């Protein structure tokens, strides 16, 4: 008997030990409902594992801020995306909840399992994953994601593995928004795989690429071959509900905005521009995901109209919703808010994607 209990305990331990830590935080309050934000590739949850990013690991807002440390003005995508102005000037607000996970030390399929399990805890008011110790319960919520978050929400929707989230009466409402979602993998993940000192073909980049780029399980899982393989097996690209895509202008525009605008976030602008020059870019759909950005991307609504290009294995519902001029980094942290990003009761500004999410993604 004791032996069976021990074995059962070990089995439970082993199964829970597979999951990496997730965290859930209520960042902004609101009265109109709840929106959950899922960040992109980064370890924002596991301080004991590699590539832990203290900026998001120690601050639930961190990933979504136009960081002042990069020369930004501190604007907050989560805030911008959960506020809406009425015609009389009054405001409506939504509650913003951040879910953080480890997107560095595991494949995106495992990260998806972690995030989905945490979302199920949120929907049920439970804490089976450890992400919800306060037993916060929200039986319905919208979803907004960036970058790898796109691959994650796409897998949740495409697989149907979590019917309490996506089935009839499931907790996830409406059409999730993917800002620069890596829905079809990332060319940069492949190109930078071999970047490790002597083998680096972009020899001037080693010093920062080593820390910033992609050579880990998370990056390797998001290569084009991996994500397309999953899509052909039916586990990606099969969303049965519309995913609203915020994309970029494509080609070099997605790397450094063609340097057309003076947004004070020079660190990321510079890195992105150099990286694009290194791995190569074009205005064709082969550039998709070069920086976790689907530019003129291959996921499309089934009729291949409304902008996007077509990949046969993406039979799901992907709406080319807003084509933003913001590059991959800016798409996340809305660096353009201070310059263009005001919203009115009747319109948004695509150069600052958060304003569109706030005004129209309901």
């Amino acid at each position: 008997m004791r032996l069976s209990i021990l074995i059962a305990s070990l089995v439970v331990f082993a199964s829970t030990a597979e999951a990496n830590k997730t965290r859930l935080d209520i960042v902004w309050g609101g009265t109109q409902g709840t929106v959950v934000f899922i960040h992109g590739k980064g370890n924002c949850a596991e301080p004991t594992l590699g590539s832990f990013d203290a900026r998001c690991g120690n601050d639930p807002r961190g990933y979504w801020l136009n960081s002042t440390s990069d020369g930004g003005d501190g604007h907050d995508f989560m805030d911008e995306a959960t506020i809406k102005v009425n015609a009389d000037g009054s405001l409506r607000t939504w509650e913003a909840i951040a879910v953080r996970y480890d997107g560095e030390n595991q494949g995106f399929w495992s990260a998806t399992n972690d995030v989905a399990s945490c979302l199920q805890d949120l929907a049920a008011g439970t804490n089976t994953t450890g992400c919800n110790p306060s037993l916060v319960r929200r039986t319905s919520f919208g979803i907004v994601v960036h970058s790898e978050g796109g691959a994650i929400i796409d897998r949740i929707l495409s697989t149907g593995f979590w019917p309490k989230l996506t089935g009839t009466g499931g907790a996830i409402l409406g059409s999730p928004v993917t800002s620069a979602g890596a829905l079809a993998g990332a060319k940069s993940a492949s190109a930078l795989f071999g970047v490790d000192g002597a083998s680096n073909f972009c020899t001037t980049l080693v010093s920062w690429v080593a820390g910033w780029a992609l050579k880990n399980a998370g990056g390797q899982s998001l290569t084009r071959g991996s994500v397309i393989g999953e899509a052909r097996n039916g586990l990606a690209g099969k969303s049965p509900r519309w995913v609203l895509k915020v994309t970029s202008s494509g080609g070099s525009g997605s790397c450094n905005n063609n340097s057309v605008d003076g947004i004070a976030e020079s660190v990321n602008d510079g890195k992105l521009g150099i990286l694009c020059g290194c791995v190569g870019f074009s205005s064709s759909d082969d550039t998709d995901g070069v920086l976790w950005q689907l530019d003129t991307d291959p996921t499309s609504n089934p009729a291949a109209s409304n902008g996007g290009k077509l990949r046969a294995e993406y039979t799901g519902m992907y709406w080319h919703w807003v084509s933003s001029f913001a590059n991959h980094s800016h798409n996340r942290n809305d660096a353009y808010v201070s310059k263009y990003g005001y919203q009115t009761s009747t319109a948004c500004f695509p150069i600052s994607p958060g304003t569109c999410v706030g005004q129209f993604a309901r």
Partner: protein
Amino acid sequence: MKRRWFVAGALLVLGALALLFYLLGRDDPARPPVPARIAAPALPREVPAAGSADELPTPPADQVAPFVPDSPPPVVLPPETQQLTEEFVPGTTDWEEVPLGDGRREVIRVLPAHYNVIAPQPIVLYLEIVDPVTGKRIDAALPRARIKPFDAGDEAWIAAAMHDDGRDGDEVAGDRRYTASFQPGPKLYGRVLAEGVVELANAGVRRVPQALIYTSGPRARLTGRWRDEAKAGHLYLSAEVVVEAAGTFTLMAQLVGPARQPIALVRAADKLDAGTRWITLRVWGKAIRDAEIDGPYEVRNVLLRRDLPERGDYDPGPTILSAHHTRPYRATEFSDAAYVEPTARGEDIGPDHPSQRGNPPPLHGDAERPSRQSIRP
């Protein structure tokens, strides 16, 4: 005299510098530095011309003008039926392709022969170096490959030389498509990371990643027996399955017309006990009706997989390219009714619900929202 020339020269240099700084900064003093250009690597495709600081294009008008984004149209098909615009083959993937190196226009690319490898089939990897302009392959120096479990450390790599001799999985000798073949056994079951590797004389080693699934299969198999019937406006396709061990299974298939016209992707998930069972796909009638394609239909590109939802993962089986031909239905036999999603919601529990009074407060108060400053009625 010399002193006068020196002063004049210094003034000239200072003036030129002042003019340069003025030109660089006149449009927008806050503009960040233009990303530094590294020594130009070979770009595999056409690269948009980068303007100089004084030739910067203006943002597209639609990016700085307010607008209302279009909403998508209503969803008319259920989750298990999706419109198919082109066939695709489960168990395969695309080439991974990266630039070969500095000053080279060629790309190195790697592909697994199969993304789903069902043991004891070997893991086969292809590598080639292609000139994108001519489309021709060129010789690769010392190509090799290696594989390991996806999450394992570097000590787990299994390496092999790649060859172009028409043997051991290499399809054509001397075609400059290099091949490596592995039969690693159960120790590699699961997700596998693969690499194609070449060495360049002046630039060292190039590695290109790929991914695949190595599995013993779903422990269930399709027998090849199928049934089809039109019922209640939809087409039902049932496949016989022999299940070795009970579990949850997903069957995915593509419906095409008599001339291989793509019509629909259909899926069904079911829990099946061990034994001989049937699993049924429903092709929503509107998908066929709207395609305006009469039968007989062909059921193609069929994949049966064992789902492991507790891990968010699965074990796929082999892909069956052509599985069944239906009777000669007419498209008009099927309903054109749009799918209506059931609305079965329970009690909505949000932050204001009495049960949530014990929630921690938001990390930031509403008055702190910075976007309040950027709202314009």
